[in-house]
C-alpha cells in the first residue's frame, strides 16, 4: 500500500484462503472418509479379522476363499444381471417416457408426479410391496388364476432362476421415474430450432429422437448413468426386503455378501476382501469417467 517498489505478491497458499477453508469439509471427506476408509478396508482385507478388526495378516487367503465361494460368484452374476437389466430397461423406458412427456401434453405434471413418486419411497418399502404383489398366493399369479387361467405361473420370488427379474421389476418401478426426469430435463434443454430444422427436413419424430436428440443428450446420459450405476452397485436394502437373498442364495448380491460376511459370519476380513473387490471394480469403471469429466478438459 505504501510503496510501489516490491512486488507484494502474496503467498500462493493464502490466495483464496476462504475458499480453501470452505472446502475443508470436502477435502476431509474425500481424504479421510473415502480415501482413508478405503485404504483401511483394503489393509484389513489381508488380515484374518473376525468380529473385530485386527492386524494379523494372512496374505491373500481371504481373496482365495472369496473367489472359491459359490455365494460370492452368484452375487457377482446377479449383480451383473441386475445391472444390465436395470441400465437397459430404466434407460429405454425412462427415455421413452421422457419423450412421451415432452410432447407438450396436457396433465404433464400429474403424469410426471405419478411416475416419480416411487422414488420417494425407500427400497425397504419397495421391497415389501413387491414381495406382496409377486406373492403367488395372493398376488398377481393368484389374481390371474382366479380369472380363469389356471395354469398361469408367475412366481419369480420363489424361483431361483428368475428371482433377479422379480427384483428388477421392483427396482425399475422405483427408479425409472428418476431417470425419466433427468432425461426430460435434458430434452427440455434442447434448442427448439433443432426440432424445427428436422421438421423442415422432413425427418420423422422417432428418427429425430434417435439420430439427433440422443447424441445431443450424451452428457445427460452420462450423468444419469453415473447416478444409476452408483445405485446399482450399492443395491442391498431392496434385496434384503424383497427376497432376503433367497430363495436359497439365488438372489444374493455383493453388497449383501459384504454385509453378511462382516456381521452374520463375523468374518470381517472376508467382508473387507469382498468390499475391496467391489471397490476395485467400481474404480475400474469410474476412474476413466472421472478423468474425462474432471481431468481431461479444462472448464471454461
Amino acid at each position: 500500500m505504501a510503496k510501489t517498489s516490491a512486488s507484494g505478491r502474496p503467498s500462493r497458499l493464502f490466495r483464496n484462503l476462504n475458499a480453501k477453508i470452505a472446502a475443508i469439509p470436502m477435502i476431509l471427506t474425500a481424504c479421510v472418509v473415502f480415501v482413508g476408509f478405503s485404504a483401511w478396508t483394503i489393509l484389513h482385507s489381508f488380515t484374518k479379522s473376525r468380529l473385530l478388526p485386527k492386524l494379523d495378516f494372512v496374505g491373500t487367503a481371504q481373496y482365495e476363499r472369496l473367489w472359491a465361494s459359490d455365494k460370492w460368484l452368484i452375487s457377482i452374476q446377479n449383480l451383473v444381471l441386475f445391472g444390465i437389466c436395470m441400465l437397459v430397461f430404466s434407460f429405454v423406458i425412462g427415455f421413452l417416457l421422457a419423450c412421451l412427456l415432452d410432447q407438450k401434453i396436457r396433465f404433464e405434471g400429474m403424469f410426471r408426479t405419478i411416475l416419480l413418486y416411487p422414488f420417494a419411497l425407500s427400497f425397504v418399502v419397495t421391497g415389501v410391496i413387491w414381495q406382496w404383489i409377486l406373492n403367488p398366493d395372493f398376488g398377481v399369479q393368484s389374481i390371474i388364476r382366479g380369472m380363469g387361467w389356471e395354469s398361469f405361473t408367475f412366481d419369480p420370488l420363489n424361483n431361483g432362476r428368475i428371482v433377479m427379474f422379480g427384483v428388477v421389476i421392483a427396482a425399475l418401478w422405483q427408479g425409472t421415474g428418476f431417470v425419466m426426469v433427468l432425461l426430460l430435463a435434458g430434452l427440455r434443454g434442447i434448442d427448439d430450432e433443432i426440432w424445427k430444422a428436422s421438421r423442415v427436413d422432413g425427418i420423422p419424430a422417432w428418427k429425430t429422437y434417435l439420430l439427433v436428440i440422443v447424441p445431443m443428450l450424451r452428457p445427460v446420459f452420462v450423468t444419469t448413468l453415473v447416478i444409476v450405476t452408483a445405485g446399482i452397485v450399492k443395491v442391498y436394502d431392496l434385496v434384503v426386503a424383497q427376497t432376503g437373498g433367497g430363495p436359497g442364495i439365488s438372489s444374493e448380491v455383493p453388497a449383501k455378501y459384504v454385509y453378511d460376511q462382516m456381521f452374520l459370519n463375523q468374518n470381517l476380513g472376508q467382508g473387507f476382501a469382498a468390499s475391496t473387490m467391489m471397490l476395485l471394480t467400481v474404480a475400474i469403471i469410474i476412474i476413466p469417467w472421472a478423468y474425462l469429466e474432471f481431468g481431461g478438459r479444462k472448464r471454461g
Partner: protein
Amino acid sequence: TEIEVTHWWTSGGEAAAVAEFAKAFDATGNKWVDGAIAGSGGTARPVMISRITGGDPMGATQFNHGQQAQELVEAGLMRSLEDVAKADGWRDIVHPASILKSCEIDGQIYCVPVNIHSQLWLWLSNAAYEKAGVPVPKDWNEFVAAAPKLREAGIQPLVIGQQPWQASLVLQNVIAAIAGPEVYGKVFNEKNIEAVASPEMEKAFAALETARELATGSNVQEWNQATTMVINGTAGGQIMGDWAQGEFAIADKVAGKDYTCLPGLGLAEIVSTGGDAFYFPKVDDPAITKAQEDLARVMISPEAQVAFNLKKGSMPVRGDVDLATANDCMRKGLDILAKGTVIQGLDQALSADAGTQLADMMVQYFNQPDMSIDDVKKGLVDILQFDS
C-alpha cells in the same frame, strides 16, 4: 437405575417372554429400557457390536453364546460375571453344565445363559393327517411313509422355510437322529473327516435326500410362516426347534391334540442345546455396574426362569425348578434333558463363519434339484476342514 437391554426377540412369544424378565428386573427397583431390534441376529448384531466398540455400550445385550462374543471379551470390552457366578454358585445350579461352559472364557464367566433350546424336533399337524386319512406318524420313518397320502390330499408333506439356517437345521436333525449322537459329535465337535464317510452318515444323507423330496413345493420364506402352515393343516410337518411351540401356543393349539411333537425325529432321545445368553459390556458408571449384577441375578433366578421359559417355549437352564405348567412337548424335552444325551448345537460346535457356510450350502441343496448329495458331502468336508 435405568439399564438398556438390547435383543432381537420381537415375535409375539418372544416379546412376551422378555417382558417377564423386564417385569422381574423392574421389581428390583431398577428400570429395564427395552432396545429391541427386529429381524434376526444379522440385523441386530452389527448394531450391538458397533455400540460396544463405538464406546456407547448398552447395559446388557443378547448374544447367542458360543464363539460369537469371544473376541469382544478378548478385547476387554465385556464384563466378567465371575464374582456374581461364584457368589451365587452358578456352576452348581446350571444344568446341563455345558451351557455355562460356553459362557466361560479363560476360566471366567462372561454371560448369563437364560434358556436352553432344543433344536431337534419334528412338528406334525394332526389335522393334516386326519384329512389324508393316515394316522399321525410316530417317527421319521412313518412320516416318510405317509407322505404320498398327504400329497394325494393336496397337503405339503414337509415344509422348510427358505432361509439358510432352517436348511442347516434339517441337516443337524437328520445327522443327530439318524446317524446318532456319537457320529454327530465326531463330525461336528471333533471335525473328523473320516466320520463323514461312515455308513451311519450315509443313512443320514439318504434321509436328507428324502427330506428334499418331501419338501419340494414348499415356498415359504420364514420359519414361522412354515409353522403357520402346520398349524392350519396345509402342511404335514416341519423340522424346527422348540421355539415353534410359541407359535402353536399363540394360535391356541394344544399339544397332543392339535399337533404332535417328535423330539429327535422320534428316533433318538437326544437334545441339542443351543440357547441365548446375555452379556454385559464394561461400563464405568458404578450404578450401572450394580444394576448389571442385579439383572444377571434376576435372569437366572428360578422365578424368572420359569416365567420366561414358559412363554418362550424353551427349557430353563437350571434343573432345580419345577415347570408344573409345562405342556406335553416341553415335558418330553425336559425328560430327555434330564436323562438323555445332550449334544452341542451347531452354533457352539462351529464358528459363525463355518456355520453360515454350512447353512448357505444346505439352502442351496434344498433349492437346486440338480445339486447332488455328493456335493453336500464334499462341501461338509471342506467346511469341517476350514473350521478345524
